[in-house]
């Protein structure tokens, strides 16, 4: 009665049916671990049991979970390799304890309250320091950019040349009119390695004195934005052997707004 009747044609069709069903996907929703565990423990209410059974007939994943669990709980295997002496099990327990102690030793210890407070304080000061450093950084970048801007502006300053020397020209007699900012090129018609340029106001107050070496710096001087409009006098002196000799006549510079 319990032997299945032989029917090759039925088996063939069942094989075809199985092949068709093989590609079917598992249901999207599964009972939770608690439900499956309770189902296995026969502690589910009957309607739940029926629901789980319907599910496991259709769901390979849950079926495998339950079968594996049954095997996990089942009687010990007859494999001689599974027969471990209590001595060996005790050795395994010692090894596990050692590993647990090692893990505990390497794990960072929770900080006591005071240490935690100190740590927070240190972190706070570190954050303040970081904020300060960031502000200084921003300031430095700002200064650098400003400097680059100023230098950039100086580099593109319109140039105006004033000739100092023996050659006389129409320009010499007229004052040079400039609108700051502007770069003045002092081009002395003489043969000195260095020159001193003295600029003074109309009332004779020295405004600026600087030395130039036309071979090296191109003889440029800058008249910045800050100069108030008015007439200035420029005098150029040639420097040689500790002596200063006037080169040409003093020129008038009219700074306009």
């Amino acid at each position, binding site marked *: 009665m319990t032997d299945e009747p032989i029917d090759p044609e039925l088996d063939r069709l069942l094989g075809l049916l199985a092949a068709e069903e093989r590609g079917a996907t598992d249901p999207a929703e599964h009972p939770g671990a608690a439900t499956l*565990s309770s189902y296995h423990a026969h502690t589910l209410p009957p309607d739940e049991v029926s629901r789980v059974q319907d599910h496991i007939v259709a769901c390979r994943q849950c079926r495998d979970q339950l079968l594996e669990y049954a095997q996990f709980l089942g009687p*010990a295997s007859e494999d001689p390799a*599974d027969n471990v002496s209590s001595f060996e099990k005790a050795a395994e327990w010692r*090894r*596990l304890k050692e590993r647990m102690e090692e893990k505990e030793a390497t794990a960072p210890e929770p900080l006591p309250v005071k240490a935690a407070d100190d740590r927070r304080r240190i972190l706070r000061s570190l954050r303040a320091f970081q904020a300060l450093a960031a502000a200084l950084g921003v300031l430095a970048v700002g200064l650098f950019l400003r400097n680059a801007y100023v230098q950039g502006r100086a580099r593109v300053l319109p140039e105006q040349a004033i000739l100092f020397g023996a050659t006389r020209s129409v320009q010499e007699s007229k004052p040079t009119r400039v609108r700051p900012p502007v770069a003045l090129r002092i081009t002395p018609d003489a043969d000195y390695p260095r020159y001193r340029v003295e600029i003074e106001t109309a009332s004779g107050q020295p405004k600026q004195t600087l030395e130039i070496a036309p071979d090296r710096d191109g003889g440029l001087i800058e008249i910045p934005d800050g100069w108030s409009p008015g007439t200035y006098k420029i005098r150029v002196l040639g420097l040689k052997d500790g002596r200063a000799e006037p080169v040409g006549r003093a020129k008038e510079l009219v700074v306009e707004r």
Partner: protein
Amino acid sequence: MRLVELIQANVEREENSHRLFDLHWRRANSYFRGKGFSPEECKDLTQDTFLRVFKSIDSFRRDSSFEWWLKGIAESIYKNEIRKRRTEKRDGIEQPIDAPVSNSERPQSPVETLASPEPGPLEKVVDREQVGALRATLQDLPEKMRQCCILRYVEGLKYQEIADLMQLSIETVKAHLFQGRKRLATMLGATQRAGKKGEGAT
């Protein structure tokens, strides 16, 4: 109170942990043996399992059984190990170039192709109809009988596995299968007879 609860309540934690280990060590070890690892590898993997068990036992909520939870950890350790080994051996499968070609890989000769047992289009249509009728008959079987038949004939499970899953005795499973097959065969005979009658009428 159960052992796990005692451990979670910090009652003689070490002694109770030792008892829990003694109680379940063999189970976890057998699990890895069942997966085909060597005895030494099994011991190491069982160690890893219990290391994780005792590390996270306080977070075990007891909504499933401890054994279910333990099996879940063992399964996770097993999967990690397999993943680790796959990463280590990612340089491909070695196959000797003079390895014999298996029958399934051997290309079929033209004669074999001509003599192929593949069913013709008409047979395929008939088969499809009969499989459809078989599926409908399966659905008409009583619940337990249907479930046993599907698990056996469609899913290919063993009697013992069906008995474990459906919480039936193995004898009951066999009885359901016997009755189920009889009904399916009767249906199949009736369908085939009806088919032949239909053919005769045309």
